[in-house]
C-alpha cells in the first residue's frame, strides 16, 4: 500500500474530529456537569458532589421517573405487540408488492413527529374526530375528555414510534431463513415451539433494536407529553427540559440525562450480545 494517503487522512480526520468534538466531548461534559454543584451566577459551581443523583431518588422525582418508565414501557410493549405480526405479514406478502408496502412504513418513519403528534391532537380533542365518530355510532352520549390524559400520551407516542419498531423487525424477519422453520416442522416441532426456539431467538436483535428505538425516545419526547398530556410533568424528557429552561438546575438535568445515556448503553450492549448469538445460531 501507499505510504502517503492524503485522502485517507482527510476523510478519517474530519469524521474523527467531528465526532470527538460534537459527540464524545459534549457527552463527557454532561457527565461532568452531573457531578458538579448548582451555581449561583454560573450554571454550575466547581465542587464535586453526587447530590444530583441522590435527588433523582427523591419521591417527587422518582415518581416522574417511574411514571415515565411505565409510559414508555407500555408504548414499547404495544408497538411490539402491533408491530411484530405486522412486520411478519409484510414479509409474507408477494415480493412485487413489498417495496411499495415497505415505503408506506418508511414515509411516516421520516416525517416530522411533531406534525404527527399534532395530527393526533386533532383526532383526540373534545370536538375531534374520534368523539364525533363515537357519538355518531351512539356508543357514547357525551364527548369524552380524551386529550390531556395518560392514554392520550400513550396513543401519541404509539402513533409516532410504531414505524421505528416495524422497520428493524422487518429487517430481521426478511432475512429469516425459511428452511430452518421447514426443518423444524419436519422434525415434528409445533407452531409454538418453532416460534419460541427458532423465530424468536433469530429475530431477537431486531426486537431489541426496535425496543431501543421506541423506549428511549418514549422517555424523552417532551412535546408529545406537552401537547397530549397537558401541563403535568409526565416524562423524564419534561423533567430534563425544565431543569435547563425554567429551574436552571443544570447538574440535576445532566444527571437525569446521564441516566438515559446509561440506559441506552445497557440496551446497546444487549443488542450486541443478541446479534452475536443470532448470527452464530444462523450458521448452517
Amino acid at each position, binding site marked *: 500500500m501507499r505510504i502517503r*494517503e*492524503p*485522502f*485517507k487522512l*482527510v*476523510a*478519517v480526520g*474530519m*469524521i*474523527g474530529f*467531528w*465526532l470527538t468534538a*460534537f*459527540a464524545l466531548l*459534549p*457527552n463527557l*461534559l*454532561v457527565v461532568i*456537569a452531573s457531578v458538579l454543584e448548582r451555581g449561583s451566577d454560573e450554571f454550575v459551581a466547581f465542587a464535586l458532589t453526587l447530590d444530583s443523583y441522590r435527588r433523582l431518588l427523591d419521591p417527587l422525582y422518582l415518581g416522574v421517573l417511574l411514571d415515565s418508565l411505565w409510559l414508555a414501557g407500555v408504548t414499547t410493549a404495544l408497538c411490539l405487540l*402491533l408491530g411484530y405480526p*405486522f412486520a411478519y*405479514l*409484510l414479509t*409474507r*406478502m408477494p415480493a412485487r408488492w413489498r417495496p411499495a408496502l415497505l*415505503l*408506506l412504513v418508511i*414515509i*411516516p418513519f*421520516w*416525517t*416530522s*413527529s*411533531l*406534525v*404527527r403528534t*399534532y*395530527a393526533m*391532537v*386533532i383526532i383526540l380533542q373534545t*370536538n*375531534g374526530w374520534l368523539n*364525533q365518530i363515537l357519538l355518531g355510532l351512539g356508543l357514547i352520549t357525551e364527548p369524552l375528555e380524551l386529550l390531556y390524559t395518560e392514554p392520550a400520551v400513550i396513543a401519541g407516542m404509539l*402513533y409516532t414510534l*410504531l414505524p421505528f419498531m416495524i422497520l428493524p423487525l422487518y429487517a430481521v424477519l426478511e432475512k429469516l431463513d425459511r428452511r430452518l422453520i421447514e426443518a423444524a416442522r419436519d422434525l415434528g416441532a409445533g407452531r409454538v415451539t418453532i416460534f419460541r426456539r427458532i423465530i424468536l431467538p433469530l429475530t431477537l436483535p431486531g426486537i431489541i433494536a426496535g425496543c431501543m*428505538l421506541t423506549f428511549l425516545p418514549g*422517555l*424523552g419526547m*417532551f*412535546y408529545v407529553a*406537552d*401537547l397530549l398530556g397537558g401541563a403535568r410533568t409526565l416524562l423524564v*424528557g419534561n423533567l*430534563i427540559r425544565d431543569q*435547563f429552561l425554567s429551574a436552571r438546575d443544570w447538574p440535576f438535568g445532566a444527571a437525569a*440525562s446521564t441516566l*438515559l*445515556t446509561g440506559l*441506552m448503553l445497557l440496551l*446497546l450492549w444487549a443488542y450486541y450480545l443478541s446479534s452475536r448469538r443470532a448470527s452464530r445460531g444462523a450458521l448452517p
Partner: protein
Amino acid sequence: MNLRGAARIAYLILIYGFLYLPILVLIVYSFNDSKYSLEWQGMTWTWYQNLFDDPDLLQVALNSTLIATLSATVATGIGTLAAVALYRYEFFGKPLLQSLIFVLMMTPDIVMGIALLILFVSLSLPLGFWTLLLAHITFNIPFVVVTVLSRISGFDRHLIEAAKDLGATEFQTVRRIVLPLLMPAVAAGWLLSFTLSMDDVMVSFFVTGPTFEILPLKIYSMVRLGVTPEINALCTIMLGVTLLLILIAQLLLHERS
C-alpha cells in the same frame, strides 16, 4: 386458508389506517372552509393564503431551509468521506469510530440536545444560527454514513483494483470510480438529512436562541396555543415537502445499477 389470508390483509389495512388516518384528517381540514367546525364546509385556500401573507412566518421558513440546506450539504460531505474511509481502509480507532456513529444515531434527541447545549455554553458560543447549524450537521452525519455504507457494501471491488492497476492515484480512484457509483446514495443521504433537519424539534429546542427562529419550533409554539386551520395548512406543507424528498430518496436508493 382464504379466511386467514383475508384476516392478514385486514390487519395490514388496520395498521396502515392507524398510521395514515390522522395525517389524512390533518390534510383534509387544512382545506376546510370553516375556522372551528369539523363539518365539511367546502374547499378553500384561505389558510394557505394567510400563511403566505405572514412575512414573519416566511422568514422563519427561510431560516429553516437555509439551515437544512447547509447542514445537509456539510453532513453529506463528511459522512460520504467517512463511509468511503470505513469501507476502504483499516486505521487506528476504526471500531471505536464505527460504534460512535452507531451510538450517535441511537442517542435520544433530548440527550444530544442538552449535551450540545452544555458544550456551546462552555465554549461561550452565542446560541443561534451557528450553534443550530453545528447541531444539525452532527445529527445528520450518522444517517448519511449509514445510507452510503449500505450502498458501498454491494460494490464490485475489482473496479477499484482495476483503476489502481491502470495507475490511478487514490484521489483519482475515489473521484472517478467510487463517487460516481455512490452518487445515488449520496443524493439520498442529502435528501434524508434535509428532511431530518427541516423536522427536528428536540435538538433545536435547546441549541437555538431568540435571534434565530426555525419552522418546527415555530409550529411547536403555535400548536401549544391550540388547533387552528393555519397550523393544519402549515403542517400539510411540511408533510408535502418531506413526502416528496423521501420518495425521491427511496427511488435513488432502489434504482438498479
